[in-house]
């Protein structure tokens, strides 16, 4: 039964269909990564700067988002936001939910990275006549990002894995599509689950190798 499934489950069209799902998985991941790197950095810097009230305020919102399950945020964006007039198609709803959540996670990494930089560098740079903004952009951020690359990549790995949650709102990503395939014939379930597990593994293990390489290179 199982062997039979292996051969018939992977017809060219089923494989193409799954690969299309992989495309959506990767697409959601890439867009969300870019958005959350931008927003995460901004929020992280705001928290690090310790502006009175403002940093606390932003930090609290950030903590709330960070401590909610991503699945809840996805359901909220897709099912609850339309109640107040914000309609997003499935793909963009997923991107918004993932970016919101991942920005909060990345902000925490950025804040931690910045705090690990020696305070003396700030003072040194300021003494050399650089403005606060310049110090941040030219001196502090490049160093902080070097330190942050490994945690950022492991966050990226979580992001790729977490796209599978979007099947809860019927986004046609890879995990959802695997389910459509085993709906055709239930002997397909083991081969299909094994196949997508492998794809996720290769994708994420590749990313973690990059993280390790970056760590060596920069350390």
């Amino acid at each position: 039964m199982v062997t039979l499934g292996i051969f018939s489950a992977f017809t060219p069209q089923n494989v193409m269909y799954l690969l299309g799902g992989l495309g959506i998985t990767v697409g959601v991941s890439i867009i969300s990564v870019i958005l959350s790197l931008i927003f995460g950095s901004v929020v992280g810097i705001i928290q690090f700067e310790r502006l009175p009230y403002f940093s606390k305020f932003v930090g609290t919102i950030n903590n709330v988002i960070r401590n909610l399950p991503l699945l809840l945020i996805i359901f909220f964006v897709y099912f609850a936001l339309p109640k107040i007039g914000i309609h997003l198609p499935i793909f963009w709803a997923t991107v918004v939910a993932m970016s919101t959540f991942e920005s909060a996670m990345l902000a925490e990494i950025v804040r931690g990275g910045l705090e690990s930089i020696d305070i003396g560098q700030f003072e040194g740079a300021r003494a050399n006549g650089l403005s606060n903004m310049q110090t941040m952009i030219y001196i502090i951020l490049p160093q902080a990002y070097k330190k942050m690359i490994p945690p950022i990549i492991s966050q990226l790995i979580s992001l790729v894995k977490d796209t599978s949650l979007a099947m809860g709102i019927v986004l046609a990503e890879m995990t959802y599509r695997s389910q459509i395939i085993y709906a055709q014939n239930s002997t397909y379930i083991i081969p299909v689950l094994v196949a997508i597990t492998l794809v996720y593994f290769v994708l994420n293990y590749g990313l973690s190798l990059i993280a390790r390489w970056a760590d060596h290179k920069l350390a």
Partner: protein
Amino acid sequence: MEKAKKRQFGIIATIVLAAVIVLGLMWATATAKQNEAHQDTLARVEKLGRIVWGVKADTKLFGLMNTKTGKPEGFDIDIAKALTVQISKQTGVPMSAEFVPVSASSKMQLIKNTNIDGSVSTMTITPEREKIIDFTNQYFDAGQSILVKKDSGINSVKDMNDSKYTIIVVVGTTAATEIAKFAPKAKVLAVQDYATGMQALKSGQGQAMSTDNAILYGFATENPDYHIAGGTFTHGPYGIAFDNNQKPMIREANKALAKIKENGVYNQLVKKWFSDVPGLDWHSLEAK
């Protein structure tokens, strides 16, 4: 920045952000109110020249994804296509049909959210749902049944009224709420979709899956070890759903439905999808 300057900036920024959030919430509630007095679906589809239909993608016979074309296929999809053609004729506005896969748990929300214009997705007409959305006349006659293993010894839903049994249902279906009336002692396991439900039944997570007979026939065709035990125990015909108070749209859809039943298109579709189902008298489904 000097300490005092920093403090000043912080206070101003906090006030600005708080103001943005408060204004955003006010705007949100205002739009929510406005959306309650919602748009007219018929006007919208005529303007856009397309009807977005919510359909199933995991349900054999009614709506199952064809992995070759990437499009769902089934009785529901064909009905939606036929209705779109007919509504175009009636209104004189050319319209195309688009399909969005929905799950049993998401379809109601998607109609309310106007992500889809209408839904042809094995949806039973119930008084509770009619409070929230509008239905056309029935387009398919269905009723709830249970699917069990042939050698399970379970002959009807009454046999399952025992806490040792678990009945699998799908979140958001009428079966999920109705089952408690017929087998109150049995445990209920709700999953997100039919494909998972069928897998769960096969792996022994429950002894029966309960939903409409029409859907179960699709699973019985594919899994010869399983059959429908004891016929239907509810009567729950399917309707095509739109957002509530969409009288013009409902009127057009009902007119189109009557027309395809009259001109034989409906019966052709019944024959196309149901004539091969073992144990189903498909002639009984035809429009008289």
